[in-house]
């Protein structure tokens, strides 16, 4: 899922995103609740209409902003209190309010408000956050009135496998339509990261979608897919695009590199996206050298198309019973010298993919 935090995907029009066959994108409850605010969203008839997006929307509850805006937030049993970065006013976000705002935004999938701590946090705070997330889940369920919206629970528990187990046990008893794995992708060791993901996918019900929040890099996505994750979101493809960096199977290329200034190839010759079909690296280089903003749109389109087609290829491989080969080829292309990171080898090993 590409991320359009504030009701707009940076550099790409909704029609362009649709033509990439993107079915679901992400918005953020905290940010949208702040601006444009519930009143506008309600009177316009929801975010789909406001931003002219006809496909699926998922809204994050605002819990993550406890970590990303940690200096401006304070958490209590009641909810999270944010100090607005715009006008310094205080805003209390409770589980009930989060669900209420999300019902006005009108996304197709909504997330519970969870108590999120950085994945680097240790000690009793991790357990407290996990237990509070369960209590808040119950408050979210009671407040959840719009049954056309799917409410997902979010598994917390940091890097502690026991806490994750407890959380999953409790949350799966609520029989929700889907579950997210939260609190990861915050700078933890990759070896711990995959073990938590692996534990969660093992314990979460097989017939419900599993969504790994805030992940990530193409490599992380392929490995987590191998471990049984179904959904991902990340600002990565559009964020690096704004820096002139494009995704390719062997990693990334920065189109501001002067060695590309006469390069007649597209970003990635086998890519079918609009950018690759029409423009060379040399032209993108020239646009970037002139600070032309549409260059960032071209690269964003490519990067989003690249990730969407990576996922399409993963789905096809799964349907054809060829996912292990797919994963192996992907990792080998990324590491042509076969110097695979240990965590990747271990993670794939755990599901029987031997590099």
């Amino acid at each position, binding site marked *: 899922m590409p991320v359009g935090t504030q009701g707009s995907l940076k550099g790409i*029009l909704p029609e*362009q995103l649709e033509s990439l066959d993107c079915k679901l994108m992400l918005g953020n409850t905290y*940010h949208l609740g702040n601006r444009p605010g519930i009143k*506008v969203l309600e009177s*316009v008839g929801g975010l789909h209409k*406001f931003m002219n997006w006809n496909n699926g929307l998922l809204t994050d509850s605002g819990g993550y902003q406890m970590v990303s805006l940690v200096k401006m937030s304070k958490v209590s049993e009641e909810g999270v209190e944010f100090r607005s970065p715009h006008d310094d006013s205080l805003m209390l976000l409770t589980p009930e309010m989060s669900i209420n705002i999300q019902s006005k935004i009108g996304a197709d999938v909504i997330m519970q408000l969870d108590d999120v701590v950085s994945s680097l946090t240790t000690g009793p705070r991790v357990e407290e956050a996990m237990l509070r997330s369960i209590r808040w889940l119950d408050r979210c369920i009671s407040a959840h009135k719009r049954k056309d919206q799917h409410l997902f629970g979010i598994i917390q528990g940091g890097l502690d496998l026991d806490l994750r187990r407890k959380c999953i046990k409790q949350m799966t008893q609520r029989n929700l339509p889907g579950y997210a794995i939260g609190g990861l992708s915050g700078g933890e060791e990759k070896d711990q990261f995959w073990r938590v993901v692996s534990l969660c996918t093992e314990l979460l019900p097989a017939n419900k979608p599993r969504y790994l929040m805030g992940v990530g890099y193409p490599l992380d996505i392929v490995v987590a897919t191998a471990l049984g994750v179904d959904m991902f979101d990340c600002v990565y493809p559009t964020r690096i695009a704004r820096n002139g960096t494009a995704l390719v199977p062997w990693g990334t290329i920065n189109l501001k590199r002067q060695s590309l200034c006469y390069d007649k190839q597209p970003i990635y010759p086998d890519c079918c996206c609009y950018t690759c079909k029409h423009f060379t690296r040399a032209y993108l280089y020239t646009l970037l050298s002139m600070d032309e903003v549409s260059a960032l749109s071209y690269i964003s389109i490519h990067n989003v198309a690249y990730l969407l087609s990576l996922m399409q290829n993963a789905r096809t491989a799964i349907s054809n019973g060829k996912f292990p080969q797919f994963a192996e080829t992907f990792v080998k292309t990324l590491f042509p010298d076969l110097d695979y990171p240990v965590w990747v080898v271990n993670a794939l090993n755990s599901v029987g993919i031997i590099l």
Partner: protein
Amino acid sequence: MTNPFAIVCENVGSSLARRGTLSMPNRKTIETPAILIYTNAGAVPHLTRDIVQSMLGYENLALNISLGHFIKFPGTYGLKKMEQNIQEFAGLNEFPTYLSVQDSLNPMPHHFNDKSTVSVWDSAGRRRIEVQDYELFVKQAAPDLFECLGDTLQSSVSNKRADKSINRSVQHLDNLIGLFGEDSNRKLFASLEGGDLIDKRVSMARTVSQRPVAGFAVNGIREDSYSDDVALLTNLLKRVYGELPVDKPRLLHSVGSPRMILEAIANGTDLLDGSYLTKLKYKNIALNIPFEIYHHQEATEHSQINSIMINISNVEFKEYLQPISSQCPCYTCSKYTCAYLHHLLITKEMLLPTLLMIHNINQYQRFFSEIREQITKQTFDNYKKKIDNLCKSNPVTI
């Protein structure tokens, strides 16, 4: 030798407005008066090519490209190495292109020019261009039309400096005509200089009027200097164009507000550059021209909406759930409310300039199409008066 320009119809009223066609091999014919859309390195700022094609339409769309955007990268060397002309390199295939020397939004101060070179800004800084450099670039880039090097004056100067500017510019022109031979007649636009010294401008126009060129480009006009007294511009254009053959197109650079455009066209201008629309984007302004084909619109309670230019940053728009213009058929107006545009502004999202450019270019395409129609119907003078009055009652300075 074929003249690419043909006059279709001239206004019979008090103004000298004329309607014409500009034809280039393998391109759609451009109907004039027309606007050349400003580009940055061949890209309409903020718009990807698929948006240009689907949301601006191919109808009468010609692009103004600038030398400085390409002269460093890829440069003549790079284009040669990649075996591409500028159309192929920038993926402009179907659009007519007019190559100008200076970037209208960021022209080079004239004191950097010398006897044999004209300076332009490239992506890294200032670069001196000699006639031979320019010749090689143009021959490799192969734009449909290109402008002559000119010692363009960007501010008020002495008579002596103006004479120097004219002498240099005529010399560059004669050099280029020598180098391009027959092609000058079909592709080269002479650059008309003289700064704000009207007699100098007239003398330059007289000197080059019989040169074998495709058209004439008036450079070095600063719209601000004329916005208080439009008659000054009228006088200047009347006298300069009076020296020129009637059957060649005239391009006027850096003049772009609705009122000044009408003034320029009323005096016989055929082409204008579209840098003004890019300036509007910086100011978050959406045009709201009251087109004849629109049904009469009731005044709304939003005073802003009744104006010919709308500033999206106005707090009135925070909860205003109507498009910029409910009758504008452009993509932006058919899909988005002012509240959304205002939200994009507040959150500094990249899509705001994109949506504004789509709307404003559509407005100008429609504006020019309406102007052409008015000339044909011989109603241009009245039309101009009407828009003039509107602009006067809602003065907007940008």
